[in-house]
């Protein structure tokens, strides 16, 4: 949080809106890079449409920052902003179409889970925008799920898709927020659930396709719903920037194999 920023409850809201707007903005920019190079003409057009949607959603969210922290000046516009709160997976261009599908399937879905939780938000400007965003996100979800099933089905793409999903998996799940029953956003009714519940809702959306496609990710079905089979790497979680620090490279073991 920069100096001259919001304080108290506004600071929590500023953080949430920043995370939503910045991730939407960079998701839109990354999608836009594939407007003319997706595997099919149809997906190129879909990428263009989804990019427009994401950038539009970001455009609708950034003005809220002005009401929460009017003294921040250049930090309130995406063109002049320097303190972005985006996921590490969106830091640079995708390595390939497979990363596009990973972002569409995991990150876009995670963002929608937050907007679903904000439809009846005590912060009305977010509630109204959430309902509109979700109308447009239905096609994004269909696109991500269908392509995920497809990449899992094709032997030549399956391993690369699994690797791409694993790169985004931990960060996307941590992104909902720290574990525990206490959370300022749910306590203030800005969101209707705690981060743990949001994670469960997210898993309920993505895990069925992951498990049905037998993709090797740490999630399984239980009687109470979908559960992670490995703990999340909270030791690498940057709670102020809402992103995961990179894992340390296993230098010693790689040298040993040389």
């Amino acid at each position, binding site marked *: 949080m920069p100096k001259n920023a919001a304080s108290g409850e506004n600071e929590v809201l500023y953080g949430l809106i920043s995370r939503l707007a910045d991730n939407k903005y960079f998701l839109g920019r990354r999608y836009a890079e594939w407007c003319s*190079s*997706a*595997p*099919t*003409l*149809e*997906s190129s*057009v*879909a990428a*263009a*449409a*989804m990019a427009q949607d994401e950038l539009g959603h970001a455009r609708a969210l950034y003005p809220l920052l002005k009401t929460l922290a009017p003294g921040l000046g250049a930090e309130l516009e995406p063109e002049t902003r320097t303190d972005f709160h985006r996921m590490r997976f969106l830091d640079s261009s995708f*390595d*390939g*179409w*497979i990363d596009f599908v990973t972002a569409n399937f995991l990150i876009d879905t995670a963002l929608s889970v937050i907007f679903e939780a904000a439809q009846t938000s005590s912060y009305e400007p977010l509630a109204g925008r959430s309902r509109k965003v979700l109308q447009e996100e239905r*096609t994004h979800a*269909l*696109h991500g*799920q*269908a*392509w995920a*099933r*497809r990449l899992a089905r*094709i032997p*030549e*793409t399956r391993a690369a898709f699994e690797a791409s999903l694993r790169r985004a998996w931990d960060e996307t799940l941590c992104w909902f927020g720290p574990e525990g029953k206490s959370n300022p956003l749910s306590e203030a009714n800005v969101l209707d659930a705690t981060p743990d519940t949001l994670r469960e809702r997210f898993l309920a959306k993505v895990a069925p396709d992951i498990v049905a496609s037998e993709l090797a990710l740490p999630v399984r079905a239980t009687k109470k719903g979908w559960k992670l089979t490995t703990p999340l790497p909270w030791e690498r979680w940057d709670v102020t920037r809402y992103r995961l620090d990179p894992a340390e490279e296993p230098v010693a073991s790689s040298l040993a194999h040389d």
Partner: protein
Amino acid sequence: MSYIDEFAAQGKGEKAPGGETKPHARIQPDRIWVVLARRAYDQPLAQVGTVEADDADLASVFARTIYDEFAWVEMVVVPRDTLVTVIAS
């Protein structure tokens, strides 16, 4: 690097009948869907185009994003291979 280049670079291309390498041919959709839509309730559904996709979800997304020039009141997609020819052209 595009998706096609990515797979060509990995040597995953398949040989076309003429001997030319056809990169990741299996990623190409294998079904054509006819897109039908109407702009008013008193109009019948009419074909507005086709999309290529290998399942109904993707076909719906593609139809919606490609043929979005009007505020349609209804749009459907039908697999072209399910159409039954009554009078051949």
